[in-house]
């Protein structure tokens, strides 16, 4: 029987030549998808929970309106009085026609304050609102 010589050994190393390309691809992905947190709002707001909570389809073009338990209103990190809401939101609405106002109100906030704020939003023609809630599972 002839002997089979196994002189040639397959190279088992993982090719790393394209590593840089893969890394850059990932980098570009994360650069494009990153949205930095712009606003912090009012601390200590406890959001209500709802079963029909849905994710908002967009990340940009959202104005956040915080309403604290004591009725304090804050829009994009500016504490504001009720009558000034329409004046502040309207220019934003003109700049971004598909603007969504996300109302982040505390569970204990009086509904009257929220209703007044919604009336102001209607005057500013900002009609797309989102009541910020957290997921709740069926009870």
């Amino acid at each position, binding site marked *: 029987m002839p002997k089979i010589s196994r002189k040639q050994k397959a190279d088992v190393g993982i090719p790393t030549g394209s590593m*840089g390309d893969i890394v850059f691809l990932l*980098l570009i992905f994360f650069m494009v*998808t990153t949205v930095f947190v712009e606003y912090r709002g009012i601390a200590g707001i406890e959001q209500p929970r*709802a079963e029909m909570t849905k994710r908002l389809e967009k990340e940009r073009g959202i104005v956040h309106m915080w309403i604290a338990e004591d009725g304090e209103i804050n829009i994009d990190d500016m504490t504001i009085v009720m009558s000034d809401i329409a004046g502040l939101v309207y220019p934003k609405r003109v700049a971004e026609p598909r603007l969504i106002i996300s109302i982040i*109100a505390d569970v204990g906030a009086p509904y*009257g304050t929220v209703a007044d704020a919604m009336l102001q*939003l209607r005057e500013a023609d900002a009609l797309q609102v989102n009541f910020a*809630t957290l997921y709740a599972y069926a*009870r």
Partner: protein
Amino acid sequence: MAGKRSEPEIPTASMADIAFLLIIFFLVTTSFNQEMGIGLTLPPVTEGAELQVRKKNILNIWVNAAGEILLGEEIVSLQQVEREVRRRVAENPLLIVSLKADRETDYDIFVQILDQLQKAETPKISLAEPD
């Protein structure tokens, strides 16, 4: 002496390291879509133009400051709202649900009822202004 000429080169061996560092930075700072909630479209302000709706097509839901719910003519619990509204919408597909809460009602109760209405697939929800 014109034989060998060294080609000027930028060293690229550490390129991947730099890119990895940047990746880690973006990984840490990325926050994927965190916006969640219940969406609603408000009606535009129309002065003087009041919409006339037949009384039988309106279902009123009143909520008082204590969080008690009056649906039509009966007092219901929060859990009953979905089934009750679903039944009435099935009977009358043109039904508009008008939700009127007291100024002192907790926002949480308002959202809970809105959640129930969304679950019941209410075609039209009207938010009445509190007195």
